[in-house]
């Protein structure tokens, strides 16, 4: 190191003398390229990489109100009767949570008996959204369930019922425990990671239901509430947490078992009629859990 030595004579120093010491630097920084290359750039590259997102989907099994898994599920559809529409006073068939009949949709007996294309290609679509507001929700997934000719559409001898008795209902079941039922649409498949990391390990979805009629090309919107005034349909009646259109579904990690449950709001679980639209614990015991949907607009 270079040192600039100076002699300080006592005689030359008075009171309050100060000495300037020059701090010359005989080196200068080369650069930090090594540090930049090996640390800074590496760190920045690492930061630029997105974290791994887990896209694993698993099966969610349907459960009743007590979170006990159910092995069957029935979906009833109830439409405005053609007579009431013609009379310009549309009303739904029956008085409670019951299915309509295929005559209401314009089908004839031969459609059911012969399984015509216009019958077997008709289906319901259950669409699942992230929230119950149509202006800002996103479609997450959907399931199509095609028309069936099963126990509800046949008489005791196994023949199709008359078209005025042929129920518009869809039976779904567990593929192992109910091998004779239809299985597509019975389970929900969703991201395990999202459910596991949700508060209380519960994740919400909102379901809507449409009937796609291959006989006339119409799409019918349905809601799990019987008391719909077709002349007074407002957005606030349909949408939101208290609307009738969106049926809340809770997906849950229940002690390691993944389940989903339909959770109706107060309008959808109207106590003035029984059984309710969302009847997951039917009485007497042993009955099939049932969802009933009614046509919204004629």
């Amino acid at each position: 190191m270079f040192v600039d030595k100076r002699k300080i004579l006592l005689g030359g120093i008075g009171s309050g003398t100060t000495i300037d010491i020059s701090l010359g630097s005989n080196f200068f920084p080369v650069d930090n390229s090594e540090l930049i290359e090996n640390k800074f750039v590496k760190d920045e590259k690492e930061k630029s990489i997105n974290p791994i997102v887990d896209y694993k989907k698993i099966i969610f099994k349907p459960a009743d109100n007590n979170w006990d898994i159910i092995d069957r599920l029935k979906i009833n559809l109830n439409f405005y009767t053609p007579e009431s529409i013609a009379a310009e006073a549309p009303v739904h068939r029956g008085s409670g949570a019951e299915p309509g009949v295929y005559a209401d949709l314009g089908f004839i007996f031969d459609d059911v008996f012969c399984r015509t294309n216009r019958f077997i290609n008709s289906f319901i679509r259950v669409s699942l959204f992230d929230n119950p507001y149509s202006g800002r929700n996103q479609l997450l997934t959907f399931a199509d369930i095609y028309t069936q000719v099963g126990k509800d559409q046949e008489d005791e001898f196994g023949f199709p019922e008359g078209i005025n008795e042929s129920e518009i209902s869809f039976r779904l079941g567990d593929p192992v425990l109910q091998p004779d039922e239809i299985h597509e649409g019975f389970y929900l498949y969703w991201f395990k990671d999202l459910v596991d990391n949700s508060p209380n390990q519960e994740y919400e979805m909102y379901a809507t239901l449409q009937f796609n009629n291959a006989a006339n090309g119409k799409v019918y919107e349905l809601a799990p509430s019987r008391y719909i005034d077709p002349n007074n349909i407002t957005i606030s009646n349909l949408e939101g947490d208290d609307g009738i259109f969106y049926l809340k579904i809770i997906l849950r990690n229940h002690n390691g078992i993944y389940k989903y449950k339909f959770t109706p709001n107060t309008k959808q679980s109207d106590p003035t009629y029984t059984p309710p639209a969302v009847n997951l614990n039917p009485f007497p015991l042993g009955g099939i859990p049932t969802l009933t949907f009614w046509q919204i607009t004629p």
Partner: protein
Amino acid sequence: MEKTNKILLNKTKSYNSINVNSQIQFGMDSTNKPIPLNDISANVNQFEQFEKERKESTIYRFYGNVIPIISNPLYNDNIKISGTPTSFSSKKILTDDIFEKGGWIGYYNDELDESALQFNDNKSALCEFFPFDPGYDRLRMLDSDGVPNYLFKITYPISSKDITLVKNSSGVSLKDGIPIIEQFPVKLNGRDYVGFKTAINHGLSDQDEISLFGFEDNTPNETLVLTQKTYRVFKLGNQTNEFKFRVFIVDLNPVDISFTIGVSTIKRVVQDKLSQYYVREFKSLSSSDYKDYDVYPASFGVSYYDDKICSFNFKKDIDVKDSNGDVLLDNLGRPLSELYFTIIKNDNDSDVTVNSQYWLKQQENLSVNLKNRFWTPIIGGYDIENNENVNYNVRSFGDPTYINNEWYPNTTGGIDESDDIFDGDIVEYNESELLERRLELVHHRVNTIYREHLNLIDSNKEDKKEGYIYKPFNKIQIREFANYINPVVDLQYVIDKYNITDTLEIDNLRHSYGIPNYATEISPNVFKWRDLLEIGEVDNSGSGVDYPFESGAHYINLDKRFYLQRQDPPCEFIIIGEEIQLGIAAPMIDEQRFMSYLTDPTFLNYSFEDPEDIVFANGGVTNLTNYNGQDTLNIDVNLADFIGSYELGKRDVAGGCVDLSLLKQKDIGDVC
């Protein structure tokens, strides 16, 4: 920032002070950093990032199919059970009404069933097949009653143990080598050679080098030098080239050498290294609560025998790291290269169904630990040689000749699906090859409590000790070792050269030479190992694994077959003739015997000893059981007696190996 200090000479502070040379330290802190003068751009390589994440991930997700081959030839009884769980009855199915459908033994419905009278549902009330118990609901992978019959687990080899494979009083066990159980002369090319049979698969190939232990050298001057010399395997198989996995031939005169069962063993030798033999133990990485995976029917999936194929998906991620974040090690201390998809039979069938209640009622007088079960506890063993001195022979369990033999675990209540550690396969490891080879796979054996203890339940019947066996462990290769062995690394040379004594320094040296923790130390600080190939890395021989990596996890698809086999399918039969007298003067017991024979599954036919005995004037034979109350009618009854390799009691159904062409066969076309 700048700071100015005044420095005063000592003289200015005190009169007595003198000036001295002072040194001042200056801190030269810098609070800013030079910035680069130009832009820096760096590329992120997606492939490199993928490879990096793939190498770092220790998470595995398993999914796939199990293709089962399952049937019920070992049914409890040929009866039809009906009623409710609290009020039930049974009806014996006549031999003539017993049918086989896709390997399942049962009966076609003999009563109208209203619920089966559906039109257009591919069922007919009178042609619906019902297997005898245990049937579909107790044996299939997909259980129609919602109670799983098997538990799936993921396991890995964690440790090893020694067993006494052949009974002996000299303390010889598997660690001492593969036991010899037979010696015989073989004539080849006009010369006599000696052949040896081993208790288990020997794992040898032609020209392999072996050491012989515990043999007798019969030459006058002990010229064989058995303790010092190794011998070559001349060929595999016996005189007729059969049993190549269990028999080998050595170029020795058979009179010069003799063996002692249980004491004489062999070991393979590779470059002067003797192979080690041991049993691996498997530890579970998944739980026993049936929550780790989903099982469901594979779409349209059936096996050749119409058994439904099931699909499964492990919801639980299997992490091959321990709680400290260290990679799990196998029984040899190496990072895991194998996992095992494990299927274990459970005993969840003692439920409240009619059938279960019926069998529980039948066995209510058994001991407490038995009467409430449907299935016996599992025992484990190997499919090895039929010799009463050989332990762990899974097919011999229940044979009174083998009563003093050993199985896994034989005394502590059996193997249970909830166990954490399971006894596994017998393997050979050679330090020269640095590879393990599986010699015998473990089998599990299970029987119904009713069959196993039939004599205690009904003293007129003998136990039916034949059970089902299956292989529980299915290998999943998650990594592979390279086909080459790394050149030996001699650290001792470096240590000696630089006189390194610090252990930390030696460890660092080991690290810098890239010696893995699992390397074998063939002498002090001299190492040898095989590289564990990275996922996606393939060596020059094609070894290596590659499977999808997605969402931070490795996805491995498994397509496994599951065979539920008979323990000892009888391959021979003899026809037994019984003479019976019916009629008013005949012993009453004969009438009962006759009725019993008609419902015995092994019943073949009956014939009249002398047709002249039939008196048509008395109505012919309208009531055969007591011959219309007339005088004696002699009848010959023929029954089949199926004979297996072991004494396991009465067999109701012949093995698939029996030539049944001599027996009458019938099919559904006879009745429907």
